[in-house]
């Protein structure tokens, strides 16, 4: 399995993601600089968190107009799996692969915390190792994670089962519509999420609930995926 970790100037969760993915047997992660124009060699493409271009103008906006994004969009069209985490999610909405936008947190402050997240659906290629309705702990750390979209889009997301993660149990740290924490594109091969699975890889980090996301995306346990 070859896995690309895209690096923009100002990305800072790139090495965390790289470590996380490389910790799996048989997975080969590589850093890919934003000027790269070809991503054909990769089975999974990861957009890391951080502050690409300092989050200047709008979070993700400047990164979404770089050469690597053109290649990423082509790969996504071919059905290659893509995960955008935090800043990566912002890039995915900015480039149009995912609908909606991420606005400033409703409380106006940056929030770093480890809330409970509900796995809304376990049928996606990214959640096959979880169970629907399961509550997991994943860290969040963002200033602009307040997901918004218009009524129609929201109804589509709901009807097509494309909301994958929600903030659980009455909490909504950033004010997102429908408590959305992560969504899919309509084909189901592109996931954007604000929580950081790469920060939940071992108990000493406070949670190891993020592991199963990568296991699902990397098809590390195909039997379970089939069974699900």
């Amino acid at each position, binding site marked *: 399995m070859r896995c690309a970790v895209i690096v923009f100037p*100002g990305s800072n969760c790139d090495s*965390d993601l790289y470590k996380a993915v490389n910790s799996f047997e048989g997975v080969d992660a590589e850093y890919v600089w934003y000027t790269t124009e070809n991503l054909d060699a990769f089975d999974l493409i990861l957009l890391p968190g951080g502050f690409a271009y300092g989050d200047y103008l709008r979070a993700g906006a400047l990164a979404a107009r770089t050469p690597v994004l053109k290649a990423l969009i082509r790969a996504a069209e071919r059905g290659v799996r893509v995960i955008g985490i935090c800043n990566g999610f912002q890039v995915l909405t900015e480039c149009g692969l995912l609908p909606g936008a991420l606005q400033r947190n409703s409380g106006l402050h940056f929030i770093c915390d480890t809330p409970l997240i509900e796995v809304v659906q376990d049928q996606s290629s990214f959640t096959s190792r979880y169970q629907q309705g399961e509550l997991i702990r994943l860290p969040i750390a963002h200033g602009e994670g307040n997901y918004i979209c218009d009524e129609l889009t929201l109804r589509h997301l709901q009807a097509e089962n494309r909301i994958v993660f929600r903030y659980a149990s009455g909490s909504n740290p950033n004010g997102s519509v429908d408590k959305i924490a992560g969504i899919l594109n309509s084909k189901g091969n592109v996931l954007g999420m604000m929580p950081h699975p790469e920060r939940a890889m071992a108990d000493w980090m406070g949670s190891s609930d993020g592991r199963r996301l990568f296991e699902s995306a990397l098809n590390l346990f195909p039997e379970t995926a089939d069974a699900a």
Partner: protein
Amino acid sequence: MPPEPTPEEISTQQSYLSLGLSDSEYQLVCELLGRKPNLTETGIYGVMWSEHCSYKTSKMQLSRFPTEGPNVLQGPGEGAGVVDLGDGWAVVFKVESHNHPSAIEPYQGAATGVGGILRDIYSMGARPVAFLNSLRFGPLSDKKDPGSPNIKRNQYLFGGVVAGIAGYGNCIGVPTVAGEVGFDACYSGNPLVNAMCVGVIRHEDLQHGRAEGIGNPVIYVGAATGRDGIHGATFASEELNEESEAKRPSVQVGDPFMGKLVLEACLELFRSGAVISVQDMGAAGLTCSSTEMAEKGGNGMELDLDLVPQRALEMSPYEIMLSESQERMLLVAKAGREEEVFEICRKWEVPACTIGRVIPETVLRLKHRGALAAELPLDRLLGSCPLYQRDAVPSEKQLSRQKKNAVTWDVPDDIGALFKEMIVQPELASKRWVYRQYDSMVRTCTSVGPGSDAAVIRIEGTNKALAMSIDGNSRYVELDPQTGGRIAVAEAARNVTCSGGQPLALTNGLNFGNPEKPEIFWQLREAVTGICEACQSLELPVTGGNVSLYNETEGEAVYPTPLIGVVGLVEHPEHETTQHWKQAGDVILLLGETEEELGASALQQFMTGSIFGMPPALDLEKEKNLQEAVLEAIRQNLIASAHDLSQGGLVMALLTSCKGELGVHVDWESGIRDDLALFSESQSRILLSTVPQNLLMLEKLMQSRKIPCERVGVVMPGRFDIALNGKFLIQEELPELQQLWENALENIMNSENQGFSGEKQAA
């Protein structure tokens, strides 16, 4: 460009005064040079001889610190201290203040403070792995006058500083993992903002800022130079009028995005081997970095100022040399390998260009528009600054206040109600509102983040971890600087110990008022004495630090505020310990003796609105014994949680050990008056919890070390019940207390401080 005053005019019009030199200092400069300096030269002397760069008042005090130890690889003198961690690893750390810039523009002041200390760490070659910070502000509320402009200003400063620290640290991708915040009327108008950075390095990668190799190119890396922060120190000491308002230096603005690129470029430059030395352009910008590098290398430096990248038009040599624009580094590369340097900088999209070279004459030579703009012999610039030994005399107020009895109030009727009022005071309230704004997890090495005594950061590729804490209770120092100094060291070390770390060394930030006043210099001297004593007893060398003097508003000094940052080594992940209860039914033990010590305590401040008497005593022998015993118990795996007792005493420590649904049931015997027993701030006390099976072994260990060890209660879900001598003083549902305590700061800040304060500029 307006014409510059001539050397003659500088002398006759005494313009050197506004450039930071006194009459006698200016005379000395003329003697050293054998001529009158021109404007640029006068400016360079002014800034290099400022307190900030020369330590002319504090140097003799600082020289008293013990700086040697078997683990010290680099003591004070370089950008930051370096301490061995074994197996070829070392830790690099230092603290830096940014008080005055933060008072003017809290967001940018704090952000650039963080950026500055970061550059100090990586210029040693180290990868920065953690930030800490220590903050002081005026009160956030006033019952009598809730809408007072002072209170609003304090809230604005607090909100802005926290946002600035978050803004820079989060963006650059280094976790902010620990710190402390204090509030007191003495900091209204003069907040304190001290930032600490910790980095990790392999021994062989250690860099030194020495300009070596005659003919080697001097390369400028990073953001262009503007008129930011020019001679800030001098302008700040001028009386403000309309004319000076126009002259006021423009605020330095941080750019963490550029900062991150410069950081990565520099670390890669070190690995390339094409670079000999690097120094950051911090205080006094190009002046300080170029002269220090040249002097340490035993050489000189020639710079062509026309080659310095400039953001503003028509900058004079004086302005170029004194600008404090951010995100800039100066480096000396190996001749012939410039292209390699530029290649790496291009990759990271960081501007870089050669601006000069290393020369054999030991001078700083500056050229501008084809002419010589300045030439100063380095030995007559750096080593020649006069040192001042000021008078040190305690004030009358100081001495009479110490003699007062610390307890002047009667036992309160309802201690439970009192407790609930106290835990919502900003001073004692949870600092969650602050640290929730900091990314404390990026880099995924944080094992214990904010919310416990010390933070713990794992070192990748090893079994080791670092425990770190920054502390300082200035009320103790105000009442008795020597004891206060000792306690600051002891407390920071105790926090590290409680987290499972062996304290290794410390950095200190000395924040004081105007040292020309005898009572202030006395505070400084006494506090240093106390710090030295504690360092000796606890075997903690000082490897670096920072001095910030003249922290005054309208002639009133802040409390003397020495801050101590301690770093410790956690030898094995199993030793990582937090202050929180782990399991219902665990037994709670109190180590140490509780005396009636309420001087400068949180209870005294709350009951009387002021502080008086003597601060708690500290017996360094006992302290050392206690810390060793706790560390031993942790290493023997006998302890579930460990928490040091500090502000607010036992009852505060009990509350802050509760987490989730784990509360306490305490039934304690004490001969001291109820309120004083619960809130006494006696030193050298630690609260432990342990599973019942380990209880006897733990008690035996403490007995063998002659450490008083009392069973005070058990961990109980959902409750906070405290009984003293068989009588319940506090009986509360835990969730209710927790909510009060955790949301207190948030409630104050969110109700009052909506809008723009402290947000990302111009976003």
